[in-house]
């Protein structure tokens, strides 16, 4: 009986000690790796992360992506002053994969960089614009490059007359019709409503899809305009 008891107690001790040794060994190995018990949790989180879609490469609005815009109203060089902003509208959406980065019909602005009314001696006016930024669907402003230069038409008769005609006109003023031509103003530079202007995205812009949740998502069939 006592032998039996002794044998049972030895077997129990041995099993406890082997499990203890196993636990200690496992801890030692972890310590050698420089990881605590938290690391196990960390590893599992990492594996979860690696399997989540967030770790997939972020969509990027690439440098040079074309944005088609149009003028909402007509702009006349004699009716604007440099520094003023004129309203634009996005003609077609800009897509990055399924994501609508810039929605159609969204409002943008161009800045007048030069404005000059029609000039004397039949010379036309000038109008220049630039677009500095465009607002994405998530509200972020991204830089773009775009300029537009429009010249007003000259008065052809006066242009032909030129400086020599001016002198002649002055000499015979007011009898000569050339005299009237001198006082003719050139045409203003005009951009009609609906005229298009193209802007290009400046630099690669990584997009966060979670910020575009409110924005419409299109089906895969539609390809991004480039």
């Amino acid at each position, binding site marked *: 009986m006592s032998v039996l008891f002794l044998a049972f107690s030895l077997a129990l001790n041995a099993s406890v000690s082997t499990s203890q040794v196993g636990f200690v060994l496992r801890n030692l190995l972890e310590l050698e790796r420089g990881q605590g018990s938290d690391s196990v949790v960390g590893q599992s989180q990492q594996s979860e992360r690696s399997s989540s879609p967030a770790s997939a490469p972020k969509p990027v609005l690439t440098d040079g992506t074309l944005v088609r815009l149009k003028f909402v109203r007509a702009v006349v060089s*004699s*009716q604007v*002053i*440099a*520094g003023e902003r004129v309203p634009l509208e996005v003609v077609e959406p800009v897509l990055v994969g399924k994501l609508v980065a810039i929605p159609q019909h969204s409002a943008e602005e161009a800045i*007048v960089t030069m404005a000059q*009314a029609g000039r004397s001696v039949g010379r036309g006016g000038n109008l220049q614009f630039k677009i500095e930024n465009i607002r994405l669907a998530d509200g972020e402003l991204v830089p773009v490059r775009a300029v537009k230069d429009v010249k007003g038409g000259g008065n052809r008769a006066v242009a032909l007359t030129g400086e020599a005609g001016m002198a002649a006109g002055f000499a015979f003023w007011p009898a000569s019709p050339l005299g009237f031509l*001198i*006082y003719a103003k050139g045409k203003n530079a005009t951009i009609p409503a609906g005229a298009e202007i193209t802007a290009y995205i400046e630099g690669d812009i990584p997009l966060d899809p979670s910020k575009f949740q409110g924005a419409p998502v299109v089906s895969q069939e539609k390809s991004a305009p480039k």
Partner: protein
Amino acid sequence: MTVVRRICVLPLMVLTATHFVRAQETTATPPRSSTAPEGEGKQRSEDETRKRLEQLACGPSGVHFSHHSEKRPQALPEQPPDKGLIYVLRTKGLEGATVQAKLAMDGKWVGVNRMASYFYIEVDPGPHYFCLKAGVGPGTIGLLSLVIEKGKTYYLRQNLTMGGNDLDLLDETKGKEYVAKYHRSVFEVKPRK
């Protein structure tokens, strides 16, 4: 007694209403910057725009300059990296040989040219408003508005014609050509008598 009371109350009511209306007017009118151009959002007429630009660009009347040209060769300024450099030049022409062509920027006269001369100014980046005045009477004012960029050089020509005066933005090649062969203007504002 009630009549007297009504007589007293009525002017008080009128006074209160007037104050209320005035307060509404003052709060409804946003403060305007003296330099910011108006008319954003609404379409101005050609006349309104011209008047507004004249207000922004031209200097006060009664400012006259004494002027001469520096005949010796002049060293040209270095392009400042944080500012725009503007050469204002006046070419040879048939008109206004004896007339000074003044230039104002943002409501202040900044210089004057006679024929075949130039001067230069350094300008902060941003929108600026330019006014050319030569001679007297209608059509003697030329206007231009321009957004100046830092590190860039601009060439503005004061173009005097029988039909009116204009400020023309020249290309760099043409501008450099004129500056190389013309003389620099030296001027100062004449004191008022």
